[in-house]
């Protein structure tokens, strides 16, 4: 064990959760603890490049019922950076295609002795249902359009790293709010930490009803642009639409794409985020995606730090509880 590992000997007692399911039900203190833990991991691993042994002996399963490349890779790398073993499980070619229920699938994986389940599923609430059937920690890696807590955290982490604090900032979330789990996790996390959120997009993708939660709704990007410290550009999820939410991509890009012309009207210190995968030319033009204000690639690095924090807090050793590696072989969880 290295010196930096000693900082991660035990999960802080102020963290009382077994799972990371959504940001809606976390407190501002919980979210701050997650962000601070992520910052500590980022520092201890030289920017997420070196390995620790904080979760040595633990096994994390990536249970992905929906396709993913960056989130799955990010969780796998984060687990390995902490010394854990990682097992990948994807729905294609599994027993699910033979009719097995997702609960049975997860129970089988649990019986193989995993310590945490990272789950992505196309249906909201599925990670929450898993916690009722499994005895191990569950991390939501995206449940349909509901939440994607680690994405929300890494966006907020990136903003905090760049601008110091969230308090008093105005953050515009632009695009397909209706189908975006990233938007929901950002909305809860940002407002809890004192930022003001503006949801912006066409009425078919941004319901007026959001105002009932105390956030501002706008259908005019050019009007809100000068007030925003941060813009988070969300992808249009064409795959989730019953009927097209706008007449054409051309018309959408005309109204909402972040381009050089709009950039000139924004604050000079505007921070631009995009959760990816980005559709260049739809929600953001290529020149803006690659401009100095864009944190898109920082987000990817910070994703590792945030996921290390999530894994650590979910399945790291707690005071008075046996660690996975201290249990005799074959002991049941």
């Amino acid at each position: 064990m290295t010196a930096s590992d000693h900082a991660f000997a035990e999960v802080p007692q102020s963290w009382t959760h077994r799972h990371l399911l959504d940001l809606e039900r976390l407190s501002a203190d919980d979210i701050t603890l997650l962000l601070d833990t992520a910052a500590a991991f980022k520092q201890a691993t030289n920017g997420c490049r070196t390995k620790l042994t904080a979760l040595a002996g633990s096994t994390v399963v990536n249970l992905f019922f929906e396709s993913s490349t960056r989130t799955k890779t990010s969780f796998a790398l984060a687990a390995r950076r902490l010394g854990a073993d990682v097992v990948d499980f994807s729905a294609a070619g599994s027993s699910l295609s033979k009719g097995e229920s997702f609960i049975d699938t997860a129970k089988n994986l649990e019986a193989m002795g995993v310590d945490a389940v990272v789950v992505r599923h196309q249906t909201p609430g599925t990670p929450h249902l898993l916690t009722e059937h499994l005895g191990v920690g569950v991390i939501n890696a995206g449940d349909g359009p509901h939440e994607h807590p680690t994405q929300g955290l890494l966006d907020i982490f990136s903003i905090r790293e760049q601008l110091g604090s969230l308090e008093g900032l105005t953050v515009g979330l632009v695009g397909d709010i209706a189908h975006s789990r990233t938007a929901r996790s950002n909305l809860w996390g940002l407002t809890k930490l004192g930022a003001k959120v503006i949801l912006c997009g066409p009425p078919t993708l941004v319901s007026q009803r959001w105002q009932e939660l105390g956030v501002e709704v706008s259908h005019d990007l050019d009007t809100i642009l000068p007030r925003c410290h941060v813009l988070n550009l969300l992808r249009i999820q064409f795959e989730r639409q019953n009927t097209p939410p706008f007449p054409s991509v051309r018309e959408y890009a005309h109204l909402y794409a972040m381009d050089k012309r709009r950039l000139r009207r924004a604050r000079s210190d505007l921070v631009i985020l995009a959760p990816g995968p980005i559709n260049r030319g739809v929600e953001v033009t290529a020149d803006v995606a690659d401009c100095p204000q864009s944190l898109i690639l920082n987000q990817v690095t910070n994703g590792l730090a945030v996921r290390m924090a999530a894994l650590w807090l979910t399945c790291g050793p707690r005071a008075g509880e046996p660690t996975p590696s201290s249990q005799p072989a074959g002991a049941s969880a």
Partner: protein
Amino acid sequence: MPSLLIRGGRIVDPSQSLDATGDVLIRDGRVVAIGAAAVSESDAAGADEVIDAEGMIITPGLVDMHVHLREPGREEDETIETGAAAAIAGGFTSVACIPNTEPPIDTQGAVEFIHQKAARADACNVFVVACVSRDRAGKELAEIGQLVEAGAVAFTDDGSPVYDAELMRRAFEYCRMFDKPILAHEEVLELSHGGVMHEGLVSLALGLPGMPAAAEEVMIGRDIALAEVTGGRLHVMHLSTAGGVALVRRAKAQGIAVTAEATPHHFTLTDECLRQFDSNYKMSPPLRTAADVEAILDGLVDGTIDCIATDHAPHAIEKKMLELDRAPFGILGLETAVGLSITRLIVPGRLDWPRLVDAMSTLPSRILGIDRGTLAVGAVGDVTIIDPNLTWEVDASTFRSKSVNSPFHGWQLTGRAVATIVGGRVKFRLHEAAAAS
């Protein structure tokens, strides 16, 4: 056939404006005497069986006009036998079964099958609601005249709306000849497509696809217009939205032949329940908002909503133990309806007993045109005896139904049927059932 004397209970029979303490004597399956001092001492002494109903409510047998018995085709969810057993355990002497079975009930043979299975189960009366359209496909009328001859009491394609407006118009026109109502599942499918819950603030926060109130209201509006133009009888099933209640209220004021039902879950639960992601809260129409619940309650109070029906919709546990979007719509109703109605309507003083019995017995009988819902002398001896003060905990593991998809498991309720009498024969007694288990 033996005689049965029910003594000293509060008889609530809105069909004859009766609300008084007294006795009911049933002989040869029919009511022969009812009321205070109506039963002579010699008759009382000669009764083969006596039930002491002191402190109890005696009502004409309760009628649930919206029950999915699943047989034939989905016997893993429910059978006519288990559904009928659930009915009598819940205090219902009659149920009307909905024809979205596999195959659907759209032939005389299918109606006879239900009648025979119900006779063999020998629990409650089972009245058959048959399909409006052949194979419930919404393309052409089923043989409605033949189905009436076989005993069908009403027509519906429930599970689905009758989507073709012209077919619905024809159905209204044609059913006039037999004076049969069309029970309508009101839903514009394009608006609710893919939805799993009410579209509102909760669905927005949870990212779950919503079913807007307008999907129900647009179709109610269409069917009211068609009922008006044809003179047909429209019965709106499982009314769930404030806007729908307003539409029905206005149509009734205009003299259009429209009636409506509401379910216990729609006057008890809201879309907030979906925050638990429990598929037992998934049904169609979905649980709506608190404002809609209030509108349903108001509709029951002022009579806009005629009756309470359960939309009892059993699903085997493995079907419900799925992700919310894959789990089927439906909730059990038969064994919790009386307790929920008393707890939600009588205890807070929203409805009085005569109105509740009207809603659960007399009016559904009248809508279906069946000779039930009354304890008048000469009527069939279907009686429900209710303990209005009994507090009990819902335990899904004790249900007679084959399924357990009830979100009310663990709820404390007030009021329960303690005896269910069908045709003068005691089919269910709570205390015997409790002693046996």
